[in-house]
């Protein structure tokens, strides 16, 4: 695929991340409302269900699962967690890194940073974000704040010392791009839903573990009598249980997929702001060369950073497993794509396709 132009790259990444988010939401709905459906069929489908429930607790033979309590509760729980994350997240993240807010620049480098941030605010048409400095020697940066009017951009001291003006501009543009693309909101939502699914999965596993034996005996007998319909219900039940057990892994992998697409998108948007993709490319090269981990930044914030604060080694090799588990696309690929935007192709002459 030859998505080289920066607007084409933006559109492609936006489309791909939308598809991934849709799959993620469908998966969440299947875990929540799919469980209701299975339980509904299980309790309304004649003899099999009433028998099995009688076996289990003896009294509830007339219970019909009609209202989708399970899905509604999961959705509400997810919404509450996301809302909490949107309200409290940004402050907590900044507090955890030990960042201090820069109000009045005292060093020349800080003045340059303030200027660069103001320039990028103009280029993106967004209000000027609050600037924070993270006391860490490793070059890295992240953005947070769920509202474009109350955004925060944080950079490490190491970043200020390592990069020149054009490179710093590229990095700040990447962070402003995260703000403009509403990535903070999206990622907080996904993190909340991943959390809810982990909870459901954990709860269900316990239920199977402790209460599974009796139900299995009753359900098996009933299924045998009902034939076709019972087999369908049994199949759905098994499929649902399997997805619930796998939910923590699947949901996390999907969320990581979205994160990586948004990284590419932020790179392409940054190029649109600065019209100088080479600046960001050279900044990424320098950030990668400083191989130390950024200790001040927790792994939970990784998806908002310019580069993964911990897993450098993973981004080096382009193995499939490593890629699936990474919060950021391989650095070499990001740099190659930025160069393609600047029409500076690598010597191979190949335009890197979209992963």
């Amino acid at each position, binding site marked *: 695929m030859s998505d080289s132009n920066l607007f084409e790259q933006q559109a492609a990444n936006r489309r791909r991340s939308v598809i991934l988010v849709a799959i993620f939401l469908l998966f969440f709905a299947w875990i929540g409302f799919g469980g209701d459906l299975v339980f509904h069929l299980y309790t309304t489908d004649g003899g099999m269900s009433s028998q099995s429930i009688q076996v289990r607790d003896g009294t509830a033979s007339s219970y019909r699962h009609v209202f989708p309590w399970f899905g509604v509760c999961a959705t509400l729980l997810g919404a509450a967690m996301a809302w909490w994350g949107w309200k409290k997240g940004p402050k907590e993240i900044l507090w955890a890194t030990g960042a201090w807010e820069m109000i009045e620049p005292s060093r*020349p480098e800080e*003045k340059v940073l303030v200027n660069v941030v103001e*320039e990028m605010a*103009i*280029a993106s048409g967004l209000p000027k974000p609050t600037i924070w400095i993270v006391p860490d020697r490793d070059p890295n940066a992240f953005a947070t704040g769920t509202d474009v009017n109350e955004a925060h951009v944080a950079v490490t001291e190491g970043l200020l010392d390592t990069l020149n003006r054009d490179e710093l501009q590229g990095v700040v543009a990447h962070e402003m791009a995260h703000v403009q693309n509403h990535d903070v909101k999206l990622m907080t939502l996904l993190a909340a839903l991943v959390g809810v699914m982990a909870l459901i999965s954990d709860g269900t596993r316990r239920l199977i573990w402790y209460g599974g034996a009796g139900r299995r005996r009753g359900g098996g007998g009933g299924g045998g009598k009902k034939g076709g319909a019972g087999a369908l219900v049994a199949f759905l039940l098994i499929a649902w249980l399997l997805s619930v057990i796998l939910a923590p892994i699947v949901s996390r992998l999907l969320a990581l997929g979205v994160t990586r697409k948004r990284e590419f998108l932020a790179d392409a948007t940054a190029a649109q*702001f600065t019209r100088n993709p080479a600046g960001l490319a050279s900044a990424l090269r320098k950030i990668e060369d400083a191989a130390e981990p950024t200790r001040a930044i927790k792994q939970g914030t990784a998806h908002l950073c310019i580069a993964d604060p911990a897993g450098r080694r993973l981004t080096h090799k382009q193995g499939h497993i490593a890629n699936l588990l990474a919060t950021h696309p391989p650095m070499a690929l990001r740099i190659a794509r930025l160069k393609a935007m600047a029409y500076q192709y690598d010597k191979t002459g190949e335009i890197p396709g979209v992963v």
Partner: protein
Amino acid sequence: MFMTWLFLAVIVIALVWAVAAYNKLIALKGATINAWKQIDVQLKRRHDLIPNLVEAVKGAMEFERETLEAVIQARNQAVQIQAGAAPTGGVQQLAAAEAALSSALGRLNVVVERYPDLKATGNVAQLQEELTSTENRVSFARQLYNDTATTYNVKQQQFPWNMIAGLAKTEPVELWEITDEKERDVPKVDLSMKPKQ
């Protein structure tokens, strides 16, 4: 009976579309004016900075009076033109005046580089960073303005939006671009080291 309903439905749909289109055009107009104001703010910042810079380097650069005067003159002309410029007229004159100012500043910068002690005093280095940033701000504001203005211009001319355009009192706006052929010229660099006649 069916025809009446169909007719009514078509009218309602057309009305709903017209309202939406009108609002969209007004929003684009607002965005264009806002982007223009951004340029205005940054240009004013630039114009205010220049006297400070000239003041800071004047003492040490007695020999370069011409360069300094060229900067001041270009600046004053740009200020004058800025006062009368609006998206619907005068954008291109202002763009040309600002380009002239940029090239005068560029020459000044080259001269300042020749005075290492001048750069060593914090004030000048600081002013130079301010000026670099201001130049960037002007160009980013221009980029935003040109993008917004292009969308606005295209929308109000496209069918069927152009039917609503009159109602929304839109008019095409000028882009910030340099039409003067002289400004486009790449400066010629002579590296042949031949003695000049």
